[in-house]
């Protein structure tokens, strides 16, 4: 098997990523574009904040609303410092085109890695504080008083000695002409009034009435609809197709082909998709047409067998520890490919004219979208308009990879002026994912004569995502993301080595929600459970002293142990598992309580997750993310599995790629939100990490069966 992605495909991906990162193509930026480019007719106090005469405050959002609450959380950070009336606050997307023209004034637009809040809290709070100071300065000028004599509350600036007061809407025009203070002082977190509460999320009402418009729902006059089929074998090409067989079908307008895809365009998506199914197509499947799971496994195993591989972390002298060990425990764990399966299948709409491109996309990164649209159309960035739509699920699928955006632009370019909406079928979405990578990990533990854990050897054979997206971030053969959980493990084991053997099959990988923190914590925390049982120790008690130097991990572990009642025996027939994992700047632990119904029926009775994210902005949204993370973890543990045969994905829909449903949801999902302050951690992904291991550790307690590969469904288990 080829050890790396098809080079041509890789080059294509890299080009898009590079363009997205540096925005090096197509447009010359004005030297002082950020100051010069404010949209006319709006009272822009800072580039983040528009205040209208009616006192409405519009906060611009550079990140994307994927359901995690970023459209509400980021405005809360602004409003906290601005001291405006929360009922007057609205959120809108920062315009991507304006962002480019104003020299990337809105910072990162990337919405992944649980970074939405933690990477933008400072400049959003500073925007609020700066705007408040400008409003105060404007009032001070008008009233001829010192700014220090003025107070601000609920959108009103007041001067107590004279009894004067003015609303923000009355001051915004004058304030907007003043210089924006640099690095204004921010409130001490102890003074927060809004941050840490749970105001109703802005995006929810429209999501209960059908009014929310997703990219799939964009309808423009004269719009056509396209269904796309890409070569089912990754890296293959379109060899031939016969458009004449479908072009006369009712509603069909055109058949458009790309190098590795073909699309039918019609006046109704169902007609387009039915015609696509009837279209005779031949593929050149290239060099991977015979690859299957067994071949991929053999390839990964070369990484386990290799004599020397890159080392991600080394403490002490593991070789010596193993040489002198009284007992050695070893185990091999593995996981397969997983698909995001966003409920809105990938889609994008585009309208292309000679000198202008417009796209409507549910994107996790406006910058990768605008770069992709510009790259394939040849239209410079400043002539590309991106209409960011709330995404129908993201989970990492809609960030760096923008094939659907490119296809929409390429198809729309064939019929200038006509808007075209590309909608992948569910089957296409299942077979053309950017999958959570495969991996096999072998772990060994060295124990001394007293049973103390003194040595730990981790060898990962693993597919890199980073090499396909930002290859420069892969140094010395080490993927900096895929080694996490091992290379940054918090345990005080004196002799430790984490070896990493990169093995990249042809199946394209992607950032799948929580990324390496879906499989690596399962490997690590179940193996530690194995050590505990092999040495006759309690799994919780074994971990505690090894985490003494990591008080936040320990505090989360203690919190879930307390909540689940670890100190007392479980009721008869009830079994418990526990696990801990920090990730994305936050700390988390999980405990699971289950019963068995027969040999294979798992009744999950309770899941408790503790999360220390440092600060909490929107408390209820954090709880929602914990609940969501539990479902995600239980779903991947039991159900999800993408398999490869003849070079292609075998699954096609939710019928053969099942995901967790409501009836399988545990009766009790408990959140322990325990922000310890002083730092900003992520929330969207960290609650997932410890759940699969806690589940499988509880399963071992119940059955004595150690599960070392997911999903459980493959072993005959089910949620009873």
């Amino acid at each position, binding site marked *: 098997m080829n050890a790396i992605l098809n080079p041509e495909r890789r080059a294509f991906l890299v080009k898009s990523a590079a363009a997205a990162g540096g925005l090096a193509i197509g447009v010359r930026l004005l030297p002082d574009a950020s100051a010069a480019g404010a949209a006319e007719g709006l009272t822009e106090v800072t580039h983040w904040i528009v205040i209208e005469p009616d006192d409405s405050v519009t906060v611009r959002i550079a990140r994307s609303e*994927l*359901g*995690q609450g970023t459209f509400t959380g980021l405005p809360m950070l602004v409003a906290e410092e601005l001291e405006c009336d929360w009922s007057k606050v609205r959120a809108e997307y920062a315009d991507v085109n304006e962002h480019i023209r104003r020299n990337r004034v809105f910072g990162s637009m990337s919405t992944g890695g649980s970074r939405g809040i933690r990477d933008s809290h400072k400049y959003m709070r500073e925007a609020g504080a700066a705007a408040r100071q400008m409003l105060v300065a404007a009032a001070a000028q008008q009233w001829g008083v010192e700014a220090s004599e003025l107070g601000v509350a609920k959108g009103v600036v007041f001067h107590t000695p004279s009894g004067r007061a003015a609303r923000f809407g009355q001051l915004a025009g004058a304030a907007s002409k003043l210089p924006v203070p640099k690095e204004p002082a921010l409130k001490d977190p102890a003074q927060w009034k809004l941050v840490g509460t*749970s105001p*109703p*999320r802005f*995006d*929810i*009402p*429209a*999501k*209960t*009435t*059908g*009014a*929310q*418009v*997703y990219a*799939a*729902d964009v*309808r423009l006059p004269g719009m056509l609809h396209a269904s796309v089929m890409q070569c089912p074998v990754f890296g293959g090409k379109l060899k031939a197709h016969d458009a004449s067989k479908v072009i006369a079908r*009712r509603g069909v307008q055109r058949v458009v082909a790309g190098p590795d895809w073909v699309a039918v365009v019609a*006046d*109704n*998506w*169902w*007609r387009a998709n039915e015609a696509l199914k009837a279209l005779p197509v031949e593929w050149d499947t290239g060099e991977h047409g015979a690859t299957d799971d067994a071949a991929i496994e053999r390839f990964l195993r070369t990484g386990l067998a290799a004599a020397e591989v890159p080392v991600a972390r080394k403490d002490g002298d593991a070789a010596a520890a193993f040489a002198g060990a009284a007992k050695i425990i070893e185990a091999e764990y593995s996981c397969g490919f997983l698909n995001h*399966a*966003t*409920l*809105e*299948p990938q889609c994008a709409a585009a309208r292309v004219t000679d000198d202008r491109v417009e796209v409507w996309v549910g994107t996790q990164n406006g910058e990768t979208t605008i770069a992709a649209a510009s790259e394939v159309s040849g239209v410079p960035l400043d002539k590309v308009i991106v209409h960011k739509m*709330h*995404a*129908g*699920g993201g*989970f990492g699928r809609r960030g760096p990879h923008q094939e659907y955006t490119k296809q929409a632009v390429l198809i729309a370019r064939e019929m200038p002026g006509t808007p075209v909406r590309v*909608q992948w079928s*569910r*089957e296409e979405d299942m077979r053309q994912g950017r999958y959570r990578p495969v991996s096999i990990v072998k772990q060994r533990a060295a124990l001394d004569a007293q049973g103390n854990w003194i040595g730990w050897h981790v060898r990962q054979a693993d597919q890199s995502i980073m090499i396909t997206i930002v290859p420069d971030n892969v140094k010395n053969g080490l993927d900096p993301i895929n080694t996490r959980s091992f290379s940054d493990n918090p345990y005080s084991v004196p002799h430790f080595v984490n070896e990493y053997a990169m093995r990249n099959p042809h199946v394209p990988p992607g950032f799948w929600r929580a990324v390496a923190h879906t499989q690596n914590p399962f490997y690590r925390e179940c193996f530690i459970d194995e050590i505990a049982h092999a040495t006759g120790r309690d799994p919780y008690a074994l971990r505690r002293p090894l985490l003494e130097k990591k008080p936040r991990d320990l505090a989360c572990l203690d919190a879930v142990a307390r909540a689940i009642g670890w100190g007392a025996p479980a009721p008869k027939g009830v079994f418990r598992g526990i696990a801990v994992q920090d990730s994305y700047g936050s700390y988390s632990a999980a405990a699971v309580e289950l019963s068995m119904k027969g040999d294979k029926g798992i009744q999950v009775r309770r899941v408790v997750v503790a999360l220390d994210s440092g600060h909490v902005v929107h408390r*209820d949204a954090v709880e*929602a993310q914990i*609940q*969501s*993370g*539990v*479902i*995600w973890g239980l*779903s991947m543990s039991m159900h999800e599995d993408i398999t490869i045969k003849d070079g292609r994905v075998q699954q096609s*829909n*939710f*019928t053969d790629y099942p*995901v*967790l*449903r*409501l*009836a399988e*949801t545990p*009766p009790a*999902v408990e959140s322990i939100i325990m922000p310890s302050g002083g730092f900003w951690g992520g929330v969207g992904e960290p609650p997932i990490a410890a759940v699969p291991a806690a589940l499988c550790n509880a399963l071992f307690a119940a059955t004595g069966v150690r599960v070392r590969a997911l999903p459980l469904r493959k072993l005959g288990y089910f949620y009873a």
Partner: protein
Amino acid sequence: MPLLKINGKTFDVNVEADMPLLWVLRDELGLTGTKYGCGVAACGACTVHLDGQAMRACVLPVAAAEGRDIVTIEGLSPDGNHPVQRAWVAHQVPQCGYCQSGMVMAAAALLENTPKPTDADIDAAMTNICRCGTYVRVREAIRLAASTTPARS
């Protein structure tokens, strides 16, 4: 030329008899609140009411819906104030929201037929997929809606 009764109005649509109702709603009539998720009745994002029963529109040929009472998410209530919708807001159920039109329609049909559902009733009726994992809150919101809706005599 099926004649369709949707949300109390009559539509004369010129489509093939086997076109699924979903694509008549979305691409012929512009009623995009009803979503496409799978096309094989597996996910429930396209749930509508057909004569008061929850039905998956992605596999329902439009000819089979002719003359029957079709209600979509846009027609569930005039102002978003159906008890299920109010409960959904009260419990802040949606995340990405893409599945929620179908969830709301399935829950509304459940409560119409079973005003005081047991947990088992909820599990059996709510087979819609939510990839964001809002199931905990879907359960809570249905219980709230059931408690605030007077049982029919």
